[in-house]
């Protein structure tokens, strides 16, 4: 705050305190500086920009500061400064206008400075983030540098697979989570409904070679689900327990662009039926055409 003054000086200062005009510089430091820098846009606009907007307009400045609204898309909305009081806000206005005089705005660097971080650039990679066309508890998985998946931990199921890259997440990362991450590349396969009946309950995942082995329940069935990359697609390894007493039929979407095969069971068009024994452990292969 302030350097400590000697008692005598301070006593005089505090005697004058009641009459002294508000100190715009220190009010600015306390209330504004965290978001408004002199010459560079930070959380809010710079003082250089504020000077352009409010030069000789202290009334407008006070009005805005007491009841701010949302002006800039993607920006954080400013909280009300009503607690400062009008004389204080006028002093802040005067201070901002004066120190920004003749100062030039600096440009803010664009692009994600951490795109190449050891974790962001890792392949394979698992990243929980808000994703399009999925529930809010989605998980993104880069199987390798080509094939990626969206797995929904809320519904315990695969939502879609895409090729051509992983995520463009900077809009999400640079903010507070209001933006979705973007998919890099093209969605090649979408699973519109869960494969298994029964209420889903997510138990988490184990990391195996950098890839997750999901553990969940669908009804009374315990399931582990693991994905690995394969040539032109991916392989899905499923284990179910306890063994059911009747055969299991899984229905897949009819998509010409994806060829689905299995290491067990019998296919009838887009439906795969597995015997109780087969259903305890099987793999499905997805190859993009």
């Amino acid at each position, binding site marked *: 705050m302030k*350097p400590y003054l000697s008692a005598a000086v*301070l006593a005089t200062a505090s005697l004058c305190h009641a009459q002294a005009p508000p100190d715009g510089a220190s009010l600015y430091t306390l209330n504004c500086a965290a978001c408004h820098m002199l010459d560079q846009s930070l*959380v809010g606009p710079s003082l250089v920009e504020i000077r352009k907007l409010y030069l000789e307009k202290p009334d407008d400045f006070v009005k805005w500061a007491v009841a701010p609204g949302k002006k800039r898309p993607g920006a954080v909305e400013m909280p009300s400064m*009503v607690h400062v009081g009008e004389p204080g806000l006028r002093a802040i206005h005067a201070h901002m206008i004066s120190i920004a005089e003749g100062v030039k705005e600096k440009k803010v660097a664009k692009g994600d400075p*951490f795109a190449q971080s050891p974790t962001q650039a890792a392949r394979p990679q698992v*990243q929980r983030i808000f994703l399009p066309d999925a529930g*809010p508890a989605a998980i993104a998985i880069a199987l390798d540098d080509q094939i990626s998946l969206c797995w929904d931990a809320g519904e315990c199921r695969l939502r879609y697979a895409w090729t051509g890259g992983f995520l463009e997440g900077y809009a999400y990362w640079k903010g507070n989570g209001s933006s979705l991450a973007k998919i890099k590349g093209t969605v090649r396969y979408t699973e519109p409904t869960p494969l298994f009946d029964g209420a889903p309950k997510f138990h*988490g995942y184990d*990391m195996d070679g950098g890839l997750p082995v999901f553990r969940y329940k669908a009804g009374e069935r315990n399931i582990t689900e693991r994905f690995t990359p394969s040539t032109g697609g991916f392989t899905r390894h499923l284990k179910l327990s306890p063994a059911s007493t009747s055969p299991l039929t899984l229905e897949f979407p009819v998509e010409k662009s994806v060829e689905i095969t299995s290491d067990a069971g019998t296919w009838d068009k887009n439906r795969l039926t597995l015997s109780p024994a087969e259903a305890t452990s099987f793999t499905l292969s997805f190859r993009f055409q």
Partner: protein
Amino acid sequence: MIPFRLLALAGLLISPALADNWTDHFSFEALPNPPGIDPQVGALEVLPDGRLAAAFHRGEVMIYDPASKSWSLFASGLQEPLGMLVQQDGSLLVMQRAELTRLVDADKDGKAERYETFFDGFGMTGNYHEFAYGPARDKDGSLFIVLGAASSGAPIRPEIRGEFSKIGRADFDQMKDGKNWKENSKLAGRMYSRVPYRGWVIKLSADGRTAEPWASGFRSPNGIGFDTHGRLLVTDNQGDWRPTSPLYEIKKDGFYGHPASLVWRKDWDGRDPLMMPVEELDRMQTPAAGYMPQGELANSPTQPLIIPDGAFPKEFDRQTLIGEMNQPWLVRVLDDEVSGQFQTALVPFLDGSPLGIGNNRLAFGKDGSLYVGKTALSWAGSFGITRVKWNGTPFFSIGGVKATPSGFTVTLSEPVDPSTTGGIITKRHTYKYHANYGSPKVDETKLPAKATLSGDGATLTIDLGGPLKEKYLHLLDLTALRSVSGNGLLGSKAWYQVNKAP
């Protein structure tokens, strides 16, 4: 008294040079950031072996070894981790957006291989402001988490997790309609709770298998922890229904002021809390145990943490410290109890030091170092970790503030120069409880203060000439005080919220 006065005079004559600074007693060291990693810190925890675990904005959990000054990666890929707690078996509980996750390194290779969903029994709309905080552990091993409400700064997502509450002026279609959000947001409430337990504290059994909605009324509660007496403390951020940032003591079934969460009460009658009379809500709410005046003490308080014995001078032992995002200091809690009611005086700590802003998470190392983890998340803030270490030299500070029938007694760490007590400034004001964002000070009054010192000069009695006023925040500005050795107070203002007057 005469010897004091003589000493003080001597002090005045020779002593502007004696003026004390935080940097005379504390060192401030920035830890190296982990290479390449976005260094915004969401959680900090000191492990039993003294290493520091930190969770970062993009979901890494990394371990810092103070001996080698190097980082290693323990886990990655979590979403906005904002709390962490080490378990007895060495696993780490980490609170992320969607769940409380238990990270287990069973094969002891330094990396977690199990990411176990410890608890995810709450709703999410996908709104950015639905942050999740905690856990804090009580002496019986139960865990407490607290869930932030959603913000009308954005709609909900088309897909949500959990039951959607029909209570509210906007229906599901309006709530997810981003195209017309400017209009629809006016119906949503500034902060809203449309899925279960947003704005609630939840109590979990030690194994996470059973959960109990514990207390409601929270807005953006970026701080949960226990004090040394086992009180569960939660901080919240100034905003709608928050006249200024509060500190609460949480009790079962309590309602803590922000109404949106009320719809998830078990016996709720279906009314829209935003349409209820403010007087009724006011009667229902538990008053804050402390208030941090906006722009003066704190704008966005964070984690409460107990100061371990010996980390700071002895008057700090077992007191509570609170982080703060927007002001370049921390907040220190001075406990009081009147007729069984916990209330506090709050004092700035490290104000005027090089600490800086963005003070999101706190942890004490084995050697008494205070680690301060910083973040911004596009709001005011910073990044990285600052290590603050006391050098063992005493300084002039407030030890405690207690309410009396006609004012306060203040204990101080050193005898006071009696010639300086005349400069004490005392004021009080109250706030308005309303849906608006924040409150101006209401009925601010300067109070006449008559100060007397105890025989040893280290206890100050401030007589305000009448009883304390309930529901008022009392400011004791002791900036003018000097110790007999001529030093000013480090942390010289105390804001005492009087809920019960003695």
